[in-house]
């Protein structure tokens, strides 16, 4: 829109107007109220955060904690090794996410299917989800990482990286399958009825009508799971995989200085915080869209 033509609404009516005196008063008092609120927020933040910081740095052990956890020069020395370890975490996350996506989709489709032929698989999928949601991830990693090589089956890998990833994929698939399934169940039955009345078969209805809408709805919770997955890949370090956590552990045990752990934590945050912010934005958008649809 050019500057010489004033803004207009959809029906072409001019949007500029001269506010009444009462409106100007209201605008002024709204401004005063928001200034007051900003002042209160600032004062309370300074008070709360200031006293927390004071509590920590005036504590009797602060001096030694500062040396063993926040040694800036040692932290920057180990930055390279820890960052190299983090690359392992990121790679593992990407590979695991793809495998989880495929496996979880199969599980969710089995659990929601009504086909008679698939009955045994439906039971198996349900049992699978129950089991892997109920066992701590760390235990699954230990059981698979140490149990599978002990079987000494020929041709089966002994790579801790692959075994660790497998354990993560097995556990996360159970969670993600439930998220996808809840998305499928959240689609109103009238959508299915409309598709079936057009002659689409059950699988066609799932593929063209239900799944596209369901997956769109579960994107925000799945992004949440992606953040959790990235952090949980750190658990495979227990098998000896040299990821960021393991690299930090090695570095700190050499000098009895824990700064490498803090370094690793900061590096994880550098990825997870933007990802979390992004997830929040996607979620807000998705809620807006669903509200708009409800109003239409």
């Amino acid at each position, binding site marked *: 829109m050019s500057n010489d033509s004033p803004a207009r609404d959809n029906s072409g009516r001019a949007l500029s107007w001269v506010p009444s005196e009462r409106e100007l008063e209201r605008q002024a008092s709204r401004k005063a109220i928001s200034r007051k609120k900003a002042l209160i927020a600032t004062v309370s933040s300074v008070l709360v955060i200031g006293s927390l910081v004071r509590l920590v740095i005036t504590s009797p052990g602060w001096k030694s904690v500062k040396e063993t956890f926040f040694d800036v020069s040692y932290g920057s020395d180990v930055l390279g090794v820890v960052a190299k370890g983090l690359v392992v975490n990121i790679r593992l996350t990407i590979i695991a996410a793809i495998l989880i996506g495929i496996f979880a989709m199969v599980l969710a489709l089995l659990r929601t299917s009504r086909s008679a032929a698939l009955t045994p698989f439906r039971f198996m999928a349900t049992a699978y989800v129950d089991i892997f949601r109920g066992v701590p991830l760390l235990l699954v990693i230990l059981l698979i990482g140490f149990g599978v090589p002990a079987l000494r089956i020929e041709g089966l890998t002994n790579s801790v990286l692959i075994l660790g990833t497998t354990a993560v994929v097995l556990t996360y698939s159970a969670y993600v399958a439930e998220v996808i399934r809840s998305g499928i169940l959240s689609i109103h039955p*009238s959508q299915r009825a*409309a598709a079936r*009345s*057009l*002659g*689409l078969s059950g699988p*066609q209805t799932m593929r*063209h009508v239900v799944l596209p*809408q369901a997956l769109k709805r579960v994107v925000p919770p799945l992004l949440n799971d992606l953040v959790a997955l990235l952090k949980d890949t750190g658990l495979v370090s227990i098998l000896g995989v040299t990821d960021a956590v393991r690299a930090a552990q090695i570095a700190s045990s050499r000098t009895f200085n824990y700064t490498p752990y803090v370094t690793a934590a900061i590096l994880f945050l550098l990825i997870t915080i933007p990802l979390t912010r992004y997830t929040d934005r996607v979620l807000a958008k998705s809620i807006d869209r669903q509200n*708009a649809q409800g109003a239409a």
Partner: protein
Amino acid sequence: MNVLEVKNLRKTFEDNLVLNDLSLTVPDHTATVLIGASGSGKSTLLRCINLLDTIDDGSIYLDGKEISDPEINVDEVRRNLGMVFQSFNLFPHMSVLENITLSPIRVHKISKAQARDQAMTLLRRFDLADKADQYPDRLSGGQQQRVAIIRSIAVKPRLLLLDEVTSALDPVLVNEVLSIVRDLKADGMAMVLATHEMGFATQVADEVCFLKDGNIIERGPASQVISAPQQDETKDFLRRVHEAGRL
């Protein structure tokens, strides 16, 4: 030749007898209008004909073939039946054109180009060609319902089932939807429709059936059932419709 024959239909939902020994015949190219209060069984009858609900007794024939047989391929039956719902039920993730061409392409295996052409012809005929690439949430209720009707006739069904297609609409949008139904009737499309619009029922109905408690109490041409009802129940219903300002 009868498109549809319903014989002694019975349907219960738990302890609730919704359709009770109901029989109905729809000759080809005719419109049968179901009237009656909410809960009288109109929607259930339509859902049973479309095999969305399983009947408890009786039988349903489409073009002389029994479709209430459990062995029947329901997808194949529904290929010959069009259904339009009160709440439109367009697919929100698809454009208008995709909504209309989904079944022709996936079920009837028509080429994409041909399905598109046929859909555009229908959209042009009903003044919706400019909405082809819009998504349903950008359309008014009347436009959405017109698209839903076009979607259901795009597969050239033998029989069209319309379930209170104007009940969810703003009064000023009702007519644009009813005029499509009138056009389809003029084309010779056989249809069964449930409606609360008595004026419209009078215009399109070859036969009007008044339903109460899951049975047809009175049937005949609109000039009889709506204008000069014989049964007390029908009179009572129409009086209440009149009081509500809908006649």
